[in-house]
């Protein structure tokens, strides 16, 4: 009797979602198996990485994270261009940090202007990420959707509390929405249903399960993403058959561990490598859990993750 390796029975497939438009548009999703289970199904679209750009000079970034962007961090357009030309970014994620009501509290008009400038200056897909403050995001992201109406942006985070306002304007101008839920699979499904009820088509939705980095509860994110994939692929749950986006760099680079200088904690190793590795490993874990798009920061961390993706999918 020959031994047969048991195989998972899949009954569903993740939808393919196209981000951006034109020659540089990127399609993600389409998996018919668990992440990298290429002996059981296919991943016709490999996971992609978006490089993040802040809309104002970052405060409190570790030196290791600032170094690759020296000279452009006060100019989002130059920063985005540098990511593309110097580091081969396939997508840009513009983080609207300046709009945070607890920070600079920049107005919607000015913020939308910056988004427009960046969108006009690049040809790769642009993800625009707010501050998760419902009132402010409703104001800012609605204006962004309108001002960039022909750009096919990816706009988020859209949460249950602001899904109607942001959803309606994104719907009007055909942008893709990032449906964001607080590490809870039931609430994630519910938001997708609500956005569907609002009229958002299945082709314009990507899921943000809310993630964290290594050491800060990443196992919960892993578990929720894993269950989303199980529901979508093995239980035919069509409300969870969407690609997943992970806004991970911001989480990793705000931790205590990436900020401690080498001399203060020699046991933790070289400070620069430490931050890079924490980012790369966090992203890799989330890819293994089912992530389709990683929002990342350090070019070296990105290189490491791309290498792993290539190795894991080599035939």
């Amino acid at each position, binding site marked *: 009797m020959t031994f047969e390796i048991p195989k998972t029975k899949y009954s569903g497939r993740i939808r393919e979602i196209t981000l951006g438009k034109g020659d540089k548009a990127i399609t993600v999703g389409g998996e018919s198996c668990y992440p990298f289970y290429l002996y059981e199904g296919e991943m016709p679209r490999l996971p992609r990485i978006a490089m993040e750009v802040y809309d104002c000079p970052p405060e409190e970034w570790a030196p290791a994270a600032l170094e690759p962007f020296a000279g452009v961090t006060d100019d989002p357009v130059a920063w985005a261009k540098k990511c593309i030309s110097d580091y081969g970014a396939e997508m840009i994620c513009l983080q609207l940090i300046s709009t945070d009501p607890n920070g600079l509290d920049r107005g919607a008009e000015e913020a939308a202007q910056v988004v427009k400038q960046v969108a006009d200056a690049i040809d790769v897909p642009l993800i625009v990420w707010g501050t998760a403050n419902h009132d402010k995001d409703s104001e800012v992201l609605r204006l962004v959707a309108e001002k960039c109406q022909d750009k096919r942006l990816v706009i988020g985070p859209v949460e249950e509390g602001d899904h109607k306002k942001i959803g309606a304007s994104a719907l009007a101008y055909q942008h893709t929405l990032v449906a964001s839920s607080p590490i809870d*699979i*039931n*609430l994630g*499904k*519910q938001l997708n*249903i*609500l956005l569907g*009820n609002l009229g958002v088509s299945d082709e314009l939705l990507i899921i943000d399960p809310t993630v964290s980095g290594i050491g800060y509860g990443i196992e919960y994110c892993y578990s929720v993403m894993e269950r989303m994939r199980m*529901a979508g692929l093995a*239980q035919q*749950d069509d*409300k*969870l058959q969407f690609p997943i986006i992970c806004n991970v760099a911001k989480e990793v680079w705000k931790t205590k561990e990436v900020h401690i200088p080498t001399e203060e904690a020699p046991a933790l190793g070289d400070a620069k490598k430490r931050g890079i590795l924490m980012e790369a490993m966090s992203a890799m874990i989330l890819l293994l859990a089912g992530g389709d798009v990683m929002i990342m920061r350090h070019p070296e961390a990105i290189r490491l993750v791309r290498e792993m993706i290539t190795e894991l999918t080599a035939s």
Partner: protein
Amino acid sequence: MLLIGENINIMSRTIGPAMKGRDPAPIQELARDEASAGVDYLDLNIGPARKAGDELMGWVVTTVQAVTDKPLSLDTTNPVAMEAGLKAAKSKALINSIAPARVDEELPMVREYGAAMIGLLWGLDGMPRDANERALIAVDLIYKANEAGIPNEDIWIDPIASPVSVEINQVRACLEFMGMLEEIAPGCRSTVGLSNISNGTPADLRPYLNRTYLIMLMRYGLYSAIVDAFDTELVKIARGEMPHIVELVHRVMDGDSPDLASLGEEEVKYAKTVRVLTGESLYSHSWLEI
């Protein structure tokens, strides 16, 4: 199927102040209403009652007994309050509940006062993770209860229903355990805090989860349940007055997928709810709409 009305609870906006202010009227009114709604026992939940719990429980028992002869389920984690309630109770009371952490203090009371007990399967390490851990805790608890002279028919095992919106595997484990209980402990009885299954669900939709889960548990031999006394459809189900719904729930549990278009509006809701409670379909607040 015995029903224990859950409504007299210190967490209630009317009952809480009445308990604290020793105002009998709202409590007695609710006790009468629950009795006429057709439940078999009245649960009196006074919470942890750390301060003067004995005096409060004694008073609540006397207050309720003044208007109804229904037997009482005494619901507190304070052993001193429990004993005061047992002393005041005129008929055989149900201790709600005894978990492994409190066996030494509370098991002796069961015999002393000729009461029955709910054996809560909340282990020393917290919530059991699956059906087997429930079984382990149950065997140990029942053994200790038997040693204390309590016969199986006075032990009502509560396998703990947990919210469907939190962890579906626990919803299934509770069901699975219910199917094992008769074999593990012949003659033992059972109960479950039913409304917990729908905790976190929008209030108007909770009854569908409660009723459907009750039918599913009854199929595995559930003896009693702690329920909302005023859910009339639920009471009818427990009384065997809705056989066609019960039959439909059983069919869907067995994997049958009836053509939803051929079902009535209420039947569709039950069918969809079974699929959510078995884990076949992932729960979301809109589960009845999709």
